[in-house]
C-alpha cells in the first residue's frame, strides 16, 4: 500500500485542491486525456461489436446441436467447411461463414441466475455489491476510444444501461431503446432552434457565474463539460449515423428485416465513422417452454443479419479491425423439460468470435450428448473449459488493453481483467 497511485480523476482532484494552482480542471482533463490516448496499442482491432443474447441461448439449438440423441430434440445440424462447426439448421447463412468464425463450445461458469450470469459474462467478474465493474463496451470505449470524439464511444442498442463504474461516466453506454426510431431528447424541443437554445445557454452561463465563482467551480466545470458534449452531439452531422434513412435499399435487403437487422446496420454505420464499442442486445432466449420452435425463430432473426454484417464489414475492409462477439449469460439444460423447454445450464455453452485477430475456422471444446457436468470438486467436465475471466484476458491481450494498470474503484485497486487469469491462446494464435 505504499506504492504511489494516481488516476485521472484523483489527479484532477489533487490539482483542484492544491490551492493557488490556477489551472482549470478541463484543461488538465484534456491534457491528460491526450496523454492517455497517446499510448500506442499493439493491436489492429479498433472496434468491438458485442451481440448479446439475453436469456441464455440453448447451445443445443444454436452451435452445439446433438441430433438423433436422447437430449437432442428435433434440432438438426448443418455440415460446414470446418470440422466440429455444425450449427443448427436454423442458421444456414452463418453456416456458410464458418471459416470466418471461431466457436467456443466450452464456455463454463457457475452462475445459473440471469442477472448474475449476465454480469459475469458482460464484465468478466462475478457480481459483488461492493464494486461495479465496467462492461465490455465501457472497457473498449476507455481503452480504444478518443475522449474528444463527438459521438459516444460506447453505443448500446437496446437493453438496460450498464454503468462504466470506476471508468467514469464518459465511458457509460449511450443507450438507444428503439433502434432506427428518433432518439429521445436528442432533437431540439418543439419551438426551439439552435438560436433559441443558444440564448437559453447564454442565460444559464450568466445566471451561474456567481455560483461558479463563489461556491461550485468544480461542479460548474463538470456541468459545462457535459453540456458541451451533449450540444456537440446534438449539432453533429454524424448524428444521422444513428438512423437508417440514408442507407441504400440493397444493404437493407442484404441484412433482412427486423429490429436485430436494423441494429446491425446501425452498428456498422457507427463503427464506420469511428465508434469503438457497440453492444446489440436481443432478448427472448429464456426458453423454459417451447424451446425448439422459439429457438429456431430467434436463430432465423439473427442468422441473415449477422452473416450480412460479416460480408459488409469485409467489403468495407473493416472486418480485420473489428471484433464481433456473440454470447449470452449461459446455456440450457441438455435434459428436455416437461414443457418442451430447457432450463438454465452454465456448465457448458457457446460463444462465437469473428473478425480482427481471431483464429477463425477453429472450434474450442467438445461436449457429449449428456452435456458436461462437474466432477466431485466442482470442476467442469467439459474439454478445454473457458471461464469468463479467461475470455476477458484473451480479449485484453488481443486488443492490448492496459491490464497491468491499477485503477481505483473508491479506495480499492482494480484491474480491467482478473490478474491471475490466463489468456486462451488458441483464440488468436
Amino acid at each position, binding site marked *: 500500500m505504499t506504492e504511489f497511485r494516481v488516476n485521472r480523476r484523483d489527479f484532477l482532484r489533487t490539482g483542484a485542491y492544491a490551492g493557488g494552482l490556477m489551472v482549470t480542471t478541463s484543461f488538465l482533463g484534456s491534457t491528460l486525456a491526450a496523454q492517455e490516448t497517446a499510448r500506442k496499442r499493439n493491436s489492429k482491432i479498433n472496434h468491438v461489436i458485442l451481440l448479446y443474447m439475453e436469456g441464455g441461448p440453448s447451445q443445443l439449438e444454436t452451435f452445439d446441436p446433438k441430433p438423433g440423441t436422447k437430449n437432442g430434440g428435433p434440432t438438426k445440424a448443418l455440415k460446414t467447411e470446418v470440422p466440429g462447426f455444425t450449427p443448427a439448421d436454423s442458421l444456414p447463412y452463418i453456416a456458410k461463414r464458418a471459416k470466418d468464425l471461431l466457436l467456443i463450445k466450452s464456455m463454463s461458469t457457475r452462475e445459473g441466475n440471469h442477472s448474475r450470469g449476465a454480469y459475469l459474462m458482460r464484465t468478466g467478474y462475478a457480481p459483488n455489491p461492493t464494486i461495479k465493474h465496467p462492461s465490455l463496451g465501457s472497457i473498449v470505449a476507455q481503452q480504444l476510444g478518443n475522449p474528444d470524439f463527438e459521438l459516444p464511444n460506447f453505443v448500446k442498442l437496446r437493453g438496460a444501461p450498464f454503468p462504466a463504474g470506476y471508468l467514469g461516466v464518459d465511458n457509460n453506454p449511450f*443507450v438507444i431503446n428503439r433502434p432506427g426510431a428518433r432518439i429521445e431528447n*436528442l432533437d431540439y*424541443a418543439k419551438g426551439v432552434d439552435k438560436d433559441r437554445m443558444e440564448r437559453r445557454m447564454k442565460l*444559464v452561463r450568466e445566471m451561474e457565474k*456567481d455560483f*461558479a465563482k463563489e461556491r461550485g467551480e*468544480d461542479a460548474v466545470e463538470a*456541468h459545462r463539460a457535459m453540456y458541451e458534449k451533449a450540444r456537440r*452531439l446534438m449539432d453533429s452531422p454524424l448524428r444521422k449515423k444513428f438512423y437508417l434513412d440514408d442507407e441504400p435499399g440493397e444493404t437493407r435487403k442484404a441484412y433482412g428485416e427486423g429490429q436485430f437487422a436494423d441494429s446491425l446496420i446501425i452498428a456498422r454505420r457507427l463503427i464506420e465513422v469511428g465508434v469503438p464499442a457497440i453492444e446489440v442486445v436481443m432478448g427472448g432466449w429464456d426458453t423454459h417452454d417451447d424451446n425448439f420452435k422459439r429457438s429456431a425463430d430467434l436463430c432465423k432473426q439473427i442468422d441473415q443479419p449477422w452473416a450480412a454484417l460479416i460480408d459488409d464489414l469485409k467489403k468495407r475492409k473493416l472486418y480485420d479491425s473489428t471484433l464481433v462477439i456473440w454470447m449470452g449469460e449461459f446455456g440450457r439444460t441438455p435434459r428436455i423439460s416437461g414443457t418442451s423447454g430447457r432450463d438454465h445450464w452454465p456448465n457448458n455453452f457457446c460463444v462465437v468470435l469473428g473478425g480482427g485477430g481471431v483464429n477463425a475456422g477453429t472450434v474450442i471444446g467438445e461436449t457429449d450428448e449428456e452435456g458436461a457436468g462437474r466432477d466431485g470438486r466442482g470442476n467442469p467436465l467439459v474439454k478445454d473449459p473457458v471461464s469468463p475471466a479467461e475470455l476477458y484476458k484473451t480479449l485484453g491481450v488481443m486488443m492490448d488493453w492496459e491490464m497491468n494498470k491499477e485503477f481505483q474503484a473508491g479506495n480499492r485497486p482494480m484491474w480491467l481483467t482478473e490478474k491471475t487469469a490466463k489468456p486462451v491462446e488458441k483464440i488468436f494464435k
Partner: protein
Amino acid sequence: MRKSLMLALPALAAIACLVAAHFNVAAQKKGGEDRDTTPQLGKDWRALRDSMDNAYEQLQADAGVKPNKIVDDSIFLRRIYLDLTGAPPSIDEINAFAPGRKDANGLRGQAKREALVEKLLASPEFAQHMATWWRVIMTERQGDGIYHNYLQRYLEEALTDNKPWNEVVHGLIAAKGRTPDVPGLGFLLTFENDRVAMAGQTSKVFLGRQIQCAECHDHHYEAWTMSDFESYAAFFRFFNTRAEGDGADRYWYSVDGGVLSEADAMRRLRLTGKYKLPRYLGEKDWTYEKGKDLRTSLADWMTSADNAWFREMTVNRYLDYFMGVGFVNPVDDFNSFNTPALPVVMQVMGRDFAASGFDTRYLVRAIVTSRMYQREVSPNRTNRQDRVYYSRNFVRSLTPEMVERSILKVTGIDRLNPHLHVPDLPVEKLSEDEKQAKVVRDRIAGYKGNLRTLIRNAFSNEEVVKDVDDHDGSIMQALLFMNAQLLPDYLNNSLKEILARYPGKIERATAIFMTVLGREPSTRDKHILNATFANWKGGDDIFEDLFVALLNTTEFVNRQ
C-alpha cells in the same frame, strides 16, 4: 497514505478529552450534584450537537484551519429543504421563512432555523424522501419495482412514526409472513433468493463491513476469510421466498423452516452442502435460542445496542449525507486501511444515538442545527483540503430521486392538477366532468411515468453513495434537461400560473427564479434579470427560456 488522517493524528488526544468531558463519561461515576447538570447520553440532542461543535472548533483551532461562516438564511433554507425533503422550497415556503428577517412568529436566526427543522421533520415529505434515500441505499436501484414499492411503504410508515431505527432494520432482516401485510419483506425480496447477495448487502449497508470479496477468496487485505463469509451467509441458508397468484392478486411470502435445536440446524446445514454453522460476523458462533429462526437471531445481534458496528455505521451514514463526508469514506467500507479519522467522536455519537433509542430524528436534529452543518461551502485559504474537521459544508450533486422530486415540485404538476375522483367504469359510462378528470389524471400519470423513465435512463450511472467531489454527469442528463418537455403544455404548470398571477416582467422573472432555484435572487441575480428583461418586447417565450435555463443551471442539480 491518507492525508486527512495524518492531519488528524496530533489532535486525537485533545478530541478524546473534549468529547469525554462534554458527555462526562468519567464524571458519571462521581457524586450526585454533578449528575444533574451533566448531560446524559441519549437525552439531549442539543448537548450532542454542542459537544460536536465545540470539539471540532477546538480541533480546527489546533490544526490552524479556519471554519467558514454560517450561511445566510436564503442558502440555509434551500439546503435544509433539499436535504430533508428532497426538493427546494416553493415561493410560499420562502416567504413564510422570511430570509434575513423575522418570521411570522417573531423568530429569527438559530431559533427560526430550529423551528423550521421541526416543521420539516414532521412533514410527509421528510418521511417520503428519507424512505426513498434508504430504499435506494438498501436495494441500489436493483430488482423489481413491486418489491421496491413494498419496501418504500414500510420505510415511509416507519419514518412517519419515527420508529426506532434498530426496530426498523430488525423488521427487514427478520421479516416474516406475506405481502402486502408484511411490506418489510420487500427488502429481502429484491435479492430474489440470492442468499449470497443478502449476506454481502446486509453486512455492507447496516454494518459497514464489505465481506463479499471473501465469497470467492480470502479477502486480499482484510482478515475476512471464505469461512467468515460462509458462516455469516449461513444465517440466510434456510430462507426462501415464494410467490402465488397472478396480476394484482400476486403475493409473496417467506419460508424459513424453523430450527428445533443446534443439532437440527447442523444436520440441515450439512444437507445443503458445505456450509458452515452460522457465526455472527467477527464474533461468536450462533447458538440455538428456543423459538427463534436463524434470521431473527441475526437481526437481534445486528441491531442490538451493544453492536458498535450497527450504531456507528448509521451515524456515519447520516453524517456523510448531511456533511458530504463521514467519519469513514466511502461511508460503508470500514476496514483496517479505512479507519475513522476521529474514532472517539464517532464512538460517542454512536453510543448517544443508541442511548436515544435509535431515534433518527434526534440524530438529524443534532446534525442539521449544528454550526458545522450550517457553514458555507466555499473554501477559504486554510480549509480547502479539510475532509476531517468539518470546517465547511460541500456542494453536492442531487441524487436522481431528488432530481425527480425537485422537477415535480418546481413545475407544480401535482399541486396544480388536483387528482379528481374518477369512478372505475368504462369511459362511455362516465359523465362529462368525470371524463375530463380522467384525461387529466392519465396525463399526470403519463407525465410522471415518462419523467421517471427519462431520469432513470439519464442517471443510470449514478453511484448510490456518490463521492462529494464527484460532479460528473453523462450527456444523457444534459440532453434530458435541454430537450425533454419538462414543462408540459398539456397540463397546468407553475410557469402558466406565474404568468397569470404576476403582470410585471420583473415580478414574473423573480417568481420564476424563486420557483426553480428555491431562493430569492441576490443583488447580482437581480441585476442580470433586469439586464435581460429591460429590452424585452412582448411574447412569453422569454419566460419559458428563463424557466428552462434555470433548470439547466449547475445550481438546480446541486445543493450547497
